[in-house]
């Protein structure tokens, strides 16, 4: 190995990169872990002694209910995204190559555009005298406007609208890799359509499904501005609780503990994703 002085460029690059990541990624995360086991302090946010109170507070029925409701809305969001996205990705992988480029482009446009603005656009449609209600009333489908805004449904619609591309893209990539000869082989071996779907297509697309779940489920618990704009005060996400604890209630240990809960959920999903990929690898695909 050559000494430091002989490779100043290499040294400079590595120091810069490591420095940035240690200071702005590792340290902050350790701080959050630390804050979660400290005592709440009105002056300096956190103080000694060490305690697990914050984690106990997570189990407080009041918050437990909020978390479970948030998990429920996130799970519904993920389910709806999967139900819409799975056939969508399948159909997309069957389109001719030329059109595919354009269609993928149309799918990533939302990723590049302001999600806040798009959530607000939904509000224009869902409001009591918004386009949907007005439209349905003038068609005579309903007599008086439905309460769409500030409901659980509105939050789920908002989350699906923002997160659908994140479900579709990983699914699309597994459908792209799905080889026609497997399907033909399955057919030649006497499997029907349903049987091929269950025994061949589903297992082979499972990593995509899990990647999609990972990319949808977690943000669906964190995007606090969606309930703020569409959901009213009764349909909160874990993200709203964390934001509240850090910016308003100033209870850092509790906010930190809630965020660690989210991180653990992420770690679990990543682990499941990895496992499913490995299993397919071992099956010799």
């Amino acid at each position, binding site marked *: 190995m050559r000494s430091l002085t002989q490779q100043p460029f290499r040294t400079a690059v590595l120091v810069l990169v490591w420095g940035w990541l240690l200071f702005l990624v590792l340290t*902050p995360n350790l701080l959050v872990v630390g804050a979660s086991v400290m005592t709440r302090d009105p002056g300096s946010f956190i103080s000694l002694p060490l305690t697990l109170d914050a984690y106990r507070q997570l189990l407080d029925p009041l918050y437990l209910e909020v978390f479970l409701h948030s998990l429920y809305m996130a799970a519904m969001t993920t389910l709806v995204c999967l139900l819409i996205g799975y056939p969508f990705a399948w159909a997309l992988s069957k*389109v001719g190559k030329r059109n595919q480029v354009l269609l993928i482009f149309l799918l990533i446009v939302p990723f590049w555009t302001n999600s806040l603005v798009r959530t607000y656009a939904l509000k224009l449609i869902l409001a009591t005298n918004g386009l949907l209600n007005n439209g349905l009333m003038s068609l005579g489908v309903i007599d008086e406007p439905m309460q769409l805004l500030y409901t659980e449904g509105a939050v789920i619609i908002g989350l699906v609208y923002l997160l659908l591309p994140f479900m579709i893209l990983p699914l699309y990539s597994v459908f792209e890799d799905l080889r026609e000869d497997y399907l033909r082989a399955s057919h030649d071996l006497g499997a029907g359509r349903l049987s091929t779907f269950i025994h061949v297509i589903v297992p082979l697309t499972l990593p995509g499904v899990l990647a999609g779940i990972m990319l949808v489920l977690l943000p669906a618990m964190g995007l606090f501005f969606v309930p703020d704009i569409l959901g009213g005060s009764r349909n909160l996400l874990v993200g709203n609780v964390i934001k509240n604890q850090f910016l308003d209630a100033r209870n850092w240990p509790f906010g930190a503990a809630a965020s660690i809960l989210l991180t653990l959920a992420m770690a679990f999903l990543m682990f499941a994703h990895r496992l499913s990929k490995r299993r397919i690898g071992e099956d010799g695909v």
Partner: protein
Amino acid sequence: MNRWLPRTYLTLVYLLLYVPIVVLVVFSFNESRTGYEWGGLSLRWYEALFNNRAMVQAMWNSLWLALSAATVSTLIGALTALALHRYRFRGKKVLNGMLFVVMMSPEIVLAISLLALFLLVGLQLGYVSLLLAHVTFCLPFVVITVMARLSGFDERLPEAARDLGANDFTMTRTVLIPVIMPALLAGWLLGFTLSLDDVVVSTFVSGPSYEILPLRIYSMVRVGLKPEVNALGTLLLVFSLVMLILSQWILLRSKR
């Protein structure tokens, strides 16, 4: 199989994705204040926007922040990608892992961890804290874009440069940089857009001294409907779209 069904389905989902955006754009030219009824074509909301001093200031702040965050993250991201690609060093997996974690972890987790750090070291929340935070969440995207470009690259070129007597720095400047240029541009544009659109992280790490656009929009849309937001949203959409088309064009052209 029936070719009709998949196509109808695709069209339907795309319609659902784009209807709200179209509604927003159309209503931004609406004369009426109520926001639900069509009152005729008008540019009054755009005028209101540009006559609002605080709004214009927030626009400039956002643009400047996005510009600097994109530039810094492209610089550091490119160097990181080069280091990961070229050098063998201890803890390479850890480095990779940290970038992956930044990209995958929920934004809000990143946001509070950075807030904790900034308050701990006594950094006043404002431009600098926003810049550090934005560079951090843009970084993995730049690294990935540049790595993708490097992975299809002829390894003999840097070797040849070295044989001809170039040191690491010279080789990087004369051989590697030209090769990864398209990825640098694409990464820069992506970083710019990510920064311009961020709400979650900015909510936590910005202070009253530096107001940026997404936060201003956020405070506006929480209560009721504001026609100015339609105009502002439309401007942002067009802006992002131009950036996206530009970056895709650069990447596609470089592949040929």
